[in-house]
């Protein structure tokens, strides 16, 4: 097993474990703990990006998600001051059992498909010359303003809608109080 593969398994495993901790007890019962588990997941995903030599995306992942978004999350959690008991209703209901069963079936099937598909697959050599530089700022930037120019512009509309939506909902509460 190469070092790269080992690093991948460690990072991917930690990312999945962190994601599970976000929703499952005992971490999931405390919003702040859940946020911290999410932080670990996001950081590990950044590591996986590095392994894919998507360096720019990895840096952005750390800056935006691990940095800004998580700080915001933590602030919101602290400001809302959620109590443990407000946050959960931990009862085993038939729906939850069905959901877990469905998830398990899907996970097993997916794992089977992935294993079957990867058996004959040939790994791309990301250290090949020419690929080594790929994933940097220049290449991603070029893609954004050439192939993906239209989706890129569409993103600006998406952000505008998000801002407007936030304003509408936030102002609605003020108006409701008035």
């Amino acid at each position, binding site marked *: 097993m190469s070092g790269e593969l080992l690093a991948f398994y460690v990072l991917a495993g930690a990312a999945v474990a962190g994601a599970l901790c976000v929703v499952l007890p005992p971490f999931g019962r405390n919003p702040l703990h859940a946020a911290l588990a999410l932080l670990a997941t996001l950081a590990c995903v950044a590591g996986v990006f590095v392994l894919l030599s998507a360096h720019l995306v990895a840096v952005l992942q750390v800056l935006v998600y691990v940095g800004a978004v998580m700080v915001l999350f933590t602030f919101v959690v602290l400001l809302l001051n959620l109590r443990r008991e407000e946050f959960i209703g931990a009862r085993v209901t038939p729906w939850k059992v069905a959901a877990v069963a469905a998830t398990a079936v*899907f996970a097993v*099937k*997916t794992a089977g*498909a*992935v294993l*079957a*598909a*990867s*058996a*004959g*697959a*040939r790994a*791309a050599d990301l250290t090949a*010359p*020419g*690929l080594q*530089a*790929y994933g940097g700022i220049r*290449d991603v930037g070029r893609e954004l303003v*050439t*192939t*993906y*120019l*239209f*989706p890129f512009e*569409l*993103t600006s*509309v*998406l952000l*505008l*809608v*998000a801002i*407007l*939506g936030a*304003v*509408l*909902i936030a*102002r*609605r509460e003020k*108006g*409701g109080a008035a």
Partner: protein
Amino acid sequence: MKDLLSLSPLWIPALTGVLALVLDLLAPRRGPRGFLGAIVAAGLATAGVAAALLWTGGPSLDAPFLRGVLRLDAYAAFFAVLIVFAGAASSLFAIHPLPEQQAEHGEFYVLLAFSVAGALAMVAATDLVTLFLGLEVMSLAVYVLCASRKGSPFATEAGMKYFVLGGFASAFLLLGIAFLYGATGSLNLAGVADALARGGAGGAQTYAQVALVLLLVAFGFKVAAVPFHLWTPDVYEGAPTPVTVFMAGAVKAAGFAVLGRVVLTAFQAPAFASLPVTAPGAFLVLSVVTMVVGNVLGIVQDNVKRILAYSSIVHAGYLLLGLYAGTGSPTALNGGVPFYLLTYVIATVGAFGVLSLLARAGVEDLSLDRVAGLGRRHPGLAALLLVALLSLAGIPPFAGFMGKFYLFREVLRADPSANVPWVVVAVLNSLIALYYYLRIAVYLYFRDPDGEPAGAVRSAPGVVTAGVAALLALVVGVFPGRFIAASESAAARSTIPATRVEAADTVGRVVRDVRPLIRSRETLRRLREAERRAGGVGR
């Protein structure tokens, strides 16, 4: 310039949104905002006309970066017209005649326009990234619109529920796209289709099956198919009724357009037929479950909005049956599907539209007991609602009947022997559905209200729009020829021919584009050095 013109159905709604936003800021703070609704409706109507005029010619984009991500053909145009119709109607229904109630509604119209722009981008997309972004623009705006009614806990609950579940569905969609990319190395639908048809590398089709399941979950949520329907009644009921008009009309039409295009393009390679999960098989199962469960739950409701919400679920079931049975070849979209959507959108816009005129007259509650006797109090509105209901139920001479008739006939034509049981199931379900449509009609005309009766708003734009919808239901039902022809030509272009898309093949492109770039830099450096050595002016 030509591209700009061809793209006009996409940017006109977005520009209308920006215009409405600016006007909202310029207008007096507490003044009425109804004029924004008229502006947005006019802008969307312009976009609809542009779509009808421009997109009949087929793909005509020059810029390579647009050709890769958008396809402006009869298919996109057909659904664009439906979406724009529902969007404009929703905007007109939202115009409130009481100025004090609409002071804060400026953003409502802006978001509606942007939502339409997103839906149109989604319908025209041939690239999964564009598709996802279009879907998110549309959905994000609708989440907010659902929660936009001031101080209403129901609306807030509806918005929250739709937002959380919609986010979940988006995650499924993204995961599906990721699997599809992993299987084929392409984000472009034509490239995906090509890679999967050629067999791909290392069990690509097995991989792609996971993607198929995930995509079906995501789109099943958007079009409200059972078992992904649980949000539908609550959200349709809780949201402001003009928003329900938009959700039941435009969002559903966009969802079906994309579902048809993506699945029929990507997953119809002959090699798929032997795998355990096939697209037609999944459509059939979803269709039958959706029809039966939607009807059973629809019968026991006693709120008009909820009944119509379940009715919209059942209609999704009929449409899924159409997706199951392609006409001619399995890759062709059944010609009845776009036409059925047309008749459904007209009728559902009319039905929810009339309800929106009732809902805002002080009484939020639209239970059957409250709307009872509407035929005596507001005969005009009751008649418009009745037309929409009869059309939804599939009673001649209204559009819904032609829609059902044509769709079921086309399903039978696709496979005259094997499809008989499914068509029988669908017809039986239409008969069951008749019960709750007529139940509303009976309450409208033959019962007395229990408790405070639902009043009606005197809103000229709303009444006119409802009237137009009723008229369209009649016209399409009596003279369906042109509409069916348009539907057939749209359906004929549903799939995108599989082509090898170099641009989507990242690794290939790196080797092709980046390497020469590196080499040319090297050359450039050497040239400069030679220049300097020769005594020229260095840097």
